[in-house]
């Protein structure tokens, strides 16, 4: 799998899911509507920069805190195609992988990237490129890899129960 896009940067560490999607809107269960509140506690203007080729480039322990899947659901509905981070919090990482939204840990690529940088994530070769500069990434564990290839947990489970 190879993803190409433009970097949108959230450089702070420990960005929690409360600022990414405030609790007051947890009574929304439609992803299309969740989009309207993404990043609201952090910087609502980030929403205007989201496009179909957005790759979010983020700091360490991104997505800490609440398990609210509203965050990656809203990201996916807004066109985010991949996340490149220094590191991710556990539940957020699971939620992204489950939704078929790939994320990779690559601190060097995060340090190199600037707003709008051309970013390419090649999961097969284990490389992130930022403006042509290549950074190696650890391979996803086999299980996660198969799930991401299938498009997320739901298609993977459907395939499992059919076989």
């Amino acid at each position, binding site marked *: 799998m190879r993803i190409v896009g433009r970097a949108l940067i959230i450089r702070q560490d420990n960005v929690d899911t409360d600022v990414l999607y405030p609790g*007051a809107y947890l009574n929304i269960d439609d992803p299309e509507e969740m989009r309207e509140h993404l990043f609201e*506690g952090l910087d609502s203007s980030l929403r205007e920069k989201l496009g179909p080729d957005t790759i979010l480039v983020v700091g360490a322990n991104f997505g*800490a805190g609440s398990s609210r*899947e509203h965050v990656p659901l809203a990201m996916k509905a807004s066109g985010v195609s991949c996340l490149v981070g220094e590191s991710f919090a556990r539940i957020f990482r699971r939620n992204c992988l*489950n939704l078929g939204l790939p994320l990779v840990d690559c601190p060097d690529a995060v340090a190199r990237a600037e707003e709008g940088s051309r970013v390419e994530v090649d999961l097969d070769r284990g490389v992130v490129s930022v403006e042509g500069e290549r950074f190696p990434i650890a391979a996803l564990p086999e299980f996660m890899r198969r799930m991401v290839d299938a498009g997320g947990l*739901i298609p993977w489970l459907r395939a499992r129960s059919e076989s």
Partner: protein
Amino acid sequence: MAHTLAEKILLAHAEVDDLAPRDVVMVRADTVMANDVSGPVAFRQMQKLGAQRVFDARRVVMVADHFVPAKDARSAALQKRLKDWAQEQGVGYYDQGRGGIEHTLLAEEGWVVPGDVIVGGDSHTCTYGALGAFGTGLGSTDIAAALAFGDFWQPVPETISVRFAGRQRGFVSGKDLILAVIAEIGVGGATNAVLEFVGDGARSLTVDERLAVANMAVEAGAETGLFPADQVTREYLAGRVTREWDELSSDADAEFSRRVEVDLNRLEPLVAAPHSPGNVRPLAEVTGTHVHQVYIGNCANGTMTDLRQAATLLRGRRLHPRTRAVIVPATQRIYRQALDEGLLGMFVDAGAMVSTPTCGACFGGGMGVLGSGETAVATTNRNFRGRMGSPDAEVYLANAYVAAAAAVAGELIDPAELIEAPAR
């Protein structure tokens, strides 16, 4: 091969001969839980999965707690969906006014025994570690899959051993113990790991205090925070559960990725200052900070222990004119008990607002929201910017003694200025 407690629990729930950190295994859940926020999103995902029924109705429980009582029509609709779904599926269900805050509730109601695996659509599902169960929080897609098939994927975590040495004194409570741990390892320090709480100090804690400690394991990034079952656990479970369970613990030669020790004899009350549970300071460093709202409650610290601690300070006193207080017993049983013990009347006489059990104020949901420029002291588990309302509000996390003392003084003070420290 030697195993940690977490590895033993996972091994007993997976179809593998052995396992080691970083293996990814499918794990069977003994109980699957969701609430009025995570449930309805999970039901949508379950439909996409093509699953009509849950894997085992006896092992599924839904709790209406986040936006109860409903603050608007939309929240009411979610709660209706939760209730309708639960009744249609025939699963366990706690309606508003009949249950309480999920984690305190499920422990109290006997859903949890040591050695269990419990997954919940809420990050604080790690609270069940207090009873030696691998409780872990998942998102709604994971929950949908667990509802349908009864299992979930899990990378085997490493284990960090946290030794509590000695006995806490004065106004130190469970909250201070876990804040000391988070201060030591950081808010991401236990990512891909489990915390295991051991030592004479851990064994001396009551279940209420253990709940407060385990609850915030996720604030260090942990999958769960385990107290190996012991005499205290047995006494708590007697009369609550009929299921058999084993008293598991880590092997003496098991491998821990890190060892942390907290000397309880020297521990002073702590707070987490704005805007992170990892921004831990001694209470003495922040005394004098003016406080506009005190919140005592939530899945970490809404137990009888917390209410009794608050009562030692609020008994016969009035709140400072600057300060309002919201007090939320975590469950209906606790509410009833606090009523019987005269605590709720005492709180009302002091000028506090006493609410029925709800998660509301903790996450800026249905009530108790902070305005711009306001400062709160809360016994909750997160003080992220904007979580309790305005992004320009500040929240200090503290134990119930410290929170109640702030309500009386109108500012953060050492409770010892108001009363003598309790004997332990």
